[in-house]
């Protein structure tokens, strides 16, 4: 198969970005436009669905709904661009499971046929960071030449999250036990990257549904470890974002909070985006003024 044009993608926003953090989509669109990417739209997508609880409830439902999203994407003839580690895990794993198991693909296609759909043309699934770091490694200037507001003097702690690189059997991206792609991008946009032993630890979000205190303690341990070391924590997944925000918003014992950023937000700021176009107030409960002031970005919405 010929190399696909890596500047055209079908955008997949999933649940959480679509319904809770629309600013993350706006930030990503801003960055994509700066990079000269074309983001195609496809209609009819549902939740990926959730690789944890939908899959844990019924594997067949999980695979079928994922295949339905892939079937919709396959009409676009472009890689599917995901902005969430969970969406990446589900859609990428499902695409590979269906590719390797003709029997499962046949069963799923019978179910898709009930809705007049079919999944015969494999779809390449990419996470935003994967595309970005590939581009940066091939041609660093393509990214760095767009930076008009470098993040100099800001200490950022990367939280790559679990499902971006694991299970490595399907993710096939970065080192599953020592991922560094996020560090590379943060360095490229001028930030000081903070290394810390807990960097690959899980944020704990999935078990928020089944044991809230235990779940939040996982995020709080990471935040505590970073309190003296970093100015903010950076995530590539809206679920990790939600978890770090919730863990701090519900924590009355520790008044000092660590700002949380979604990678696209920082890229958009570094590329000169107007903060009003990123809807920070709709997503951030932990105040981010200190960071914006360091970048000399001011917005009334942050008062």
């Amino acid at each position, binding site marked *: 198969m010929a190399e696909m044009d890596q500047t055209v993608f079908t955008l997949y926003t999933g649940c959480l970005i679509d319904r809770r953090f629309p600013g993350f989509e706006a930030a990503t669109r801003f960055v994509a436009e700066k990079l000269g990417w074309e983001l195609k739209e496809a209609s009819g997508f549902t939740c990926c669905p*959730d690789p944890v609880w*939908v899959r*844990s409830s019924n594997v067949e439902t999980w695979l079928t709904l994922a295949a339905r999203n892939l079937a919709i994407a396959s009409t676009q003839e472009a890689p599917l661009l995901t902005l969430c580690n969970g969406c990446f895990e589900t859609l990428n794993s499902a695409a590979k499971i269906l590719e390797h198991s003709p029997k499962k693909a046949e069963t799923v296609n019978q179910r898709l046929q009930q809705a007049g759909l079919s999944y015969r043309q494999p779809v390449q699934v990419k996470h935003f960071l994967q595309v970005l770091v590939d581009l940066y490694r091939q041609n660093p200037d393509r990214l760095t030449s767009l930076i008009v507001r470098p993040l100099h003097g800001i200490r950022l702690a990367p939280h790559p999250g679990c499902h971006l690189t694991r299970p490595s059997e399907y993710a096939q991206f970065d080192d599953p036990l020592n991922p560094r792609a996020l560090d590379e991008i943060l360095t490229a946009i001028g930030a000081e990257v903070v290394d810390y032993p807990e960097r690959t630890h899980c944020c704990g979000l999935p*078990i928020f549904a089944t044991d809230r205190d235990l779940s939040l303690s*996982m995020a709080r341990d990471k935040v505590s470890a970073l309190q003296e070391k970093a100015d903010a924590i950076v995530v590539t997944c809206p679920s990790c974002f939600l978890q770090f925000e919730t863990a701090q918003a519900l924590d009355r014992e520790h008044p000092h909070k660590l700002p949380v950023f979604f990678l696209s937000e920082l890229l958009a700021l570094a590329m000169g985006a107007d903060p009003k176009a990123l809807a920070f107030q709709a997503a951030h409960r932990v105040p981010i003024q200190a960071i914006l002031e360091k970048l000399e970005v001011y917005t009334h919405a942050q008062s």
Partner: protein
Amino acid sequence: MLKINPEFRKTLSQALGEEVLFLCYQCGKCSAHCPVFHRVPDRFNPRKILEMAYLGVEQLLEDPALWLCTTCYECVENCPQTVNFVDIIVTLRNLAMDRGLAPKSVLDEYQAVTNKGFVYPLTGRIRKVKEELGLSITGDGDSPSFQQVLEVRHG
């Protein structure tokens, strides 16, 4: 007292593949790398879950431990025997779900996705933010036909 049920063991090994349960030699590396085990070793121990699955202890399906795995895959990436603990916990959870043993929060999310297509509803507040940002809006039920693919037809 824990009871071994050969029938349950058979069900499990059929779902996972005959050889999977034999791969684990109980080295405990999964637990050593598990962030949940480190916090609550008495409540969640992947090595023990694998041991009980190997033996065919059916009470596993009623054990609250079943719902404490975050699926972070640290165990899977570190297992010297390539045991996929996450696949095993997912299979056990599917069996528990079939018997009505899943926690309500899990069932609620499953029903939200299978009924509406999304985990989260689109609130008026977010709809307004999306309008201001000029983003396209997908309402609940705007994903035509998604429920048809879940219908199981017989014959």
